[in-house]
């Protein structure tokens, strides 16, 4: 099926192409692209100027040096001839530098069914095909699979809600993975792409989407090449080639409605909900948005059976999930663990402290919070791990070995959330920079009031959860911010 609004949806691919070809996109370049797509220049400019990557010259000569949280904690600093860049999602080799490279097999530290060596047959897909749509939905329901992007919404419920509209629907795979400290989708796409393709085929088989889009992080070149090659080699199992769209950066791009706007060629900002994407998403179609790991889990569930999937994890949160473990541990990397494992156990699996004793863990990145070592008995389960902010989220765990590192990371995350605010809603756009200023200056009068406003009033999860790192750091280490 041809895509609706084809002209406007050509905007982001055209911007990506122009940026790759000639670096930073200015208004005149955006204007030329707009003219080619026969759309108003102001509309192309509002979208183009909202993707941080398009502001940057394509670095030539200068070596990128990662200054994301894990690299910062490892002492990263950009020297002469180098350029500081946001998290490169290579926290397993912090401090990281250089261009994006394929995720190395050696950084897969613990494999379960998701990260096991790839299969040579399509038994999962065959089983799904044999059971038909209703059988797949029933199997999914029995498995209890919950979305691995971080919100843990039951996948069977999401699919059923979209199918219940009885209208042509869209399937969007969220492969943006823009959260600092998370790199597990890159691991899957680089090292187990065939499993992802099998899961995708199962989803397409069951949902029969009119449109399938894989939205992939614009900088994840290694994952792009590996995925493209797998889609080409195994294209025969997919009824139609999915459309692959690359992003232009920005943490908020991983928020699903922001992603839908980006695909449509609109400014990448969140939409109000309701309507939820399953009701009205991409071009108004009922839309299922699933994370890469969720899609790959389908292959595991239909290969091993729902009961085998349920045998791992907990009753309410079955299965395994991928953790991106980084920081001051002996063996940082991707760990496939059963849901419900404790942080202490993860630390042990990761070989314990690399040098000094661990004092804190950041769980959930910029949308999560810090936990002191005394709480490491907490099991990793969906939802908040602590009322002050820590959450399992997309499975990022950063271990820190000094109070100074906690302070540095908290300030980094407060600044990150301010810089990554898309600017659409007032509490986040106006609140996040002031929250960062208050934390940095130590003048915290009114800070809790401000954090409450951001948490309750913000439009999307980015603003609602931005208080987490600040609140948790202040709760457990008030003396660091006096």
């Amino acid at each position, binding site marked *: 099926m041809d895509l609706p609004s084809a002209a406007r949806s050509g905007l982001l691919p055209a911007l990506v192409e122009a940026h790759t070809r000639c670096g930073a996109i*200015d*208004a005149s370049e*955006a*204007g030329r692209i707009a003219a080619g797509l026969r*759309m*108003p*220049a*102001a*509309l192309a*400019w*509002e*979208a183009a*100027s*909202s993707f*941080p990557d398009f502001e940057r010259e394509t670095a030539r000569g200068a070596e990128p040096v990662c200054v994301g949280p894990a690299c910062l904690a490892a002492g990263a600093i950009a020297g002469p001839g180098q350029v500081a860049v946001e998290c490169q999602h290579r926290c397993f080799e912090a401090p990281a530098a250089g261009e994006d490279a394929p995720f190395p097999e050696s950084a897969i530290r613990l494999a379960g069914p998701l990260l096991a060596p790839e299969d040579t047959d399509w038994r999962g897909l065959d089983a799904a095909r044999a059971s038909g749509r209703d059988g797949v939905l029933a199997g999914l329901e029995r498995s209890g699979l919950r979305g691995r992007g971080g919100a843990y919404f039951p996948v069977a419920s999401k699919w059923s809600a979209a199918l219940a509209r009885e209208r042509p629907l869209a399937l969007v795979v969220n492969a943006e993975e823009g959260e600092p400290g998370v790199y597990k989708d890159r691991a899957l796409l680089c090292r187990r792409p065939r499993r992802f393709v099998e899961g995708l085929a199962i989803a397409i088989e069951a949902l029969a989407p009119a449109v399938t889009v894989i939205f992939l992080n614009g900088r994840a070149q290694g994952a792009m090449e590996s995925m493209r090659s797998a889609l080409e080699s195994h294209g025969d199992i997919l009824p139609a080639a999915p459309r692959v769209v690359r992003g232009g950066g*920005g943490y908020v791009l991983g928020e699903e409605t922001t992603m839908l706007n980006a695909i449509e060629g609109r*400014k990448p*900002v*969140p*939409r*109000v*909900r*309701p309507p939820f994407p399953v009701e009205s998403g991409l071009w108004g179609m009922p839309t299922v948005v699933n994370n890469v790991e969720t899609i790959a889990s389908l292959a595991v569930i239909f290969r091993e059976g729902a009961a085998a999937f349920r045998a791992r994890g907990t009753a309410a949160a079955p299965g395994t999930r991928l953790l991106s473990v980084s920081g001051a541990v002996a063996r940082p990397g991707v760990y496939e663990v059963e849901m419900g494992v404790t942080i202490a156990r993860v630390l042990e699996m990761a070989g314990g402290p690399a040098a000094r004793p661990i004092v804190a863990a950041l769980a959930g990145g910029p949308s999560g919070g810090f936990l002191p070592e005394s709480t490491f008995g907490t099991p990793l389960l969906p939802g908040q791990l602590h009322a002050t902010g820590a959450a399992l989220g997309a499975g990022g765990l950063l271990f820190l070995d000094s109070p100074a590192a906690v302070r540095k990371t908290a300030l980094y995350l407060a600044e990150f959330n*301010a*810089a*990554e*605010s*898309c*600017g*659409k*809603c*007032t*509490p986040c*756009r*106006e*609140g996040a*920079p*002031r929250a960062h200023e208050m934390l940095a200056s130590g003048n915290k009068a*009114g800070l809790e*009031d*401000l954090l*409450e*406003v951001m948490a*309750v*009033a*913000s*439009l999307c999860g980015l603003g609602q959860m931005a208080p987490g790192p600040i609140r948790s750091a202040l709760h457990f280490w008030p003396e660091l911010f006096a």
Partner: protein
Amino acid sequence: MSLTVDGIEAPAEGTLLDAVLAAGIGLPHLCTDDNLAAIGACRTCLVEADGRIVAACSAPASQFHQVATRGAVVERIRRGVLELTAAMVSPGSLDRPGGPHAGELAAALASHSARLDRYPHRTRTRSDATNTFFSFHEEACILCGRCVAACQELQHIGAIGMAGRGGATRVTPGADATFADSICTSCGSCVAACPTPALSPREAFAP
């Protein structure tokens, strides 16, 4: 199922904002006007609905039973959002004459006893007086998005957009463009929608 707003029976149709206004109760709604779908940007129409705080503009009335616009927590948070909004406009800029809805922000600030100096001001200062019929003063702009929605969704023109992100977001006809050299047709929809005097009729055309 019945819906009450502050104890008053209200029609459970459309959004909670529709229900609140139909019950004759005042509630700020700086990014929503009658002609446009919910934008969800200003976050000033927060109400407490069945124990949750939600933005009334985008909450379906049929899903709720008891709605309160009053209450310590919801009023404190609305005031907080309004105080952040107040910090976006320069002192005095709201006193300027404007379009038909230009007084909405000032009225919301007054009804909530919002402190205008709660947060250090962070105002944008560009002006554009190149159009014959209206002018644009960023110092009174709160980035609610009504003007952009009116231009793009209501009039299908697309002369203006919300360029940039985060604190650098601004309403603009293009990077260095002016209204005069944009595709603006001077239809006036943006001026009619603006809840502050940011987009205001030129003196000769003021109502």
